[in-house]
């Protein structure tokens, strides 16, 4: 129940934002894994856009449409190779109206 409320809350927040999604070209990918590391698991809670979620096999998946390109996941999980992070193509991704 708590999860659902939280999810609703962040989705409402993201709804205010402007994005230009590049269909079929996600700029973040999670490498296939059996069990996520502590940092990768943490992303399911601490990603400010809630882009990371656990699937029913206990693996972490990402949907980067709501990503605000902060780089938190990159700082925590790029060096270990668990995620691959690139900028969206020029002009795509989040477009802050105010910043």
């Amino acid at each position, binding site marked *: 129940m708590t999860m659902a409320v939280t999810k609703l*809350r962040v989705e409402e927040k993201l709804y205010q934002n402007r994005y230009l999604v590049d269909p079929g070209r996600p700029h973040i990918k999670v490498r296939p894994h059996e069990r996520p590391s502590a940092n990768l698991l943490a992303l399911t809670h601490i990603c400010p856009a809630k882009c990371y979620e656990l699937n029913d096999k206990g693996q972490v998946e990402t949907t980067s449409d709501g990503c605000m390109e902060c780089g938190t996941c990159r700082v925590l999980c790029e060096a270990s190779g668990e995620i691959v992070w690139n*900028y969206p193509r020029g*002009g795509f991704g989040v477009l802050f109206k105010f910043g």
Partner: protein
Amino acid sequence: MIEQEFDAIVVGAGMSGNAAAYTMASQGLTVLQLERGEYPGSKNVQGAIMYADMLEQIIPDFRDDAPLERHLVEQRFWVMDDTSHTGMQYRSDDFNEAKPNRYTIIRAQFDKWFSRKVRQAGATVLCETTVTELVRSASGKVIGVRTDRAGGPIYADVVVLAEGVNGLLGTRAGLRKMPKPESVALAVKEMHFLPDEVIEQRFGLQGDEGCVIEAAGTISRSMAGLAFLYTNKESISLGIGCLVSDFAQTMESPYVLLDNFKNHPSIRPLIAGSEVKEYSAHLIPEGGYKAIPQLFGDGWVAVGDAAQLNNAIHREGSNLAMTSGRIAGEAIIEIKGRNQPMIRRNLALYKTMLDKSFVVKDLMKYKDMPALIHTNSLNFFMTYPQLMSQAAQNFMRVDGTPKIEKEKATTAAFIRARSRWGLISDVVRLALAWR
């Protein structure tokens, strides 16, 4: 396809990139600035407070047309627990001066204005262009960039990396390491819109006067963090940031912290009835002096957040960014004037000049603070705020308890929480790090 070879390519159109591009273009250098956003500012997030002195050194008459929100006349520092805040507040009519010292700004608007100035100074600004790679010569000197646009590489004598805290180019090219989780904070922010007269009434402001609140305490749930509320003309920027390492450890959700801050009894009435129009997130460099990476090399310099230049104690970042961008630009102009190549030995001039400026001097002053705060976050962000609130309430509440007993109870609470030695050691360590 861009055939021309430039004196300089600037990667990024934030504060540091704009300062560098403007400085170089206005002195006649051929400058290409590349920005991955749809417009300058579309990827940039800041609180935001802009410091006039550092912009004046670049564009002296900026007040004529820059989009400024409010000039600050009041600053409140709050230590919060769950139901209270204990505060220090400074407000002065001296800040109502002909050329005010600090302004709130809205970055997307400000950055568009700054970018227009860069263009007027003669630089070529190309948006919607992501730089994908640095191009190097056989000897390893950076000689240009590749982008995601059609066409080959674009060449320049020097590349200014103003790519921000989450810059990919410099780290991928091995010019600097990725920031450590304990050296960056994740901040989330919302823009709350209210009529200007409502903001003025709630904060006791007249005209363009502005007020800022910076708050620490139990709102960051024992993580090293800070919340803020800045008044703009017709909106309030409010947010909270904590170290990424602390987020990873506690697994707290930043948007939950933000909502808790908004619902705090001291904050809620200030934003009541507002319309939220944006939610943003960004990293802030917090590592200070010890986290500054290599700033220059053969054919490149790094400026602003990409170089981790941020004063976490004073919450200053954009002024360090602007100043480092300007100084990098001036160093490049100087080297070009001598007809010398943009190699490591010559570009060391940038660091020499930066070391002499307030940028490095200020970061040096607080070099031990980030580690102290990081390793003692439970005490500084949970225990002491709670003790302060209890002490203040104990002092104010009149309930028939003799004052001498109240004082004893307060002293005992501090000792119980931290021990005598702990209290002394906290004060000494803080004083040493601050010195």
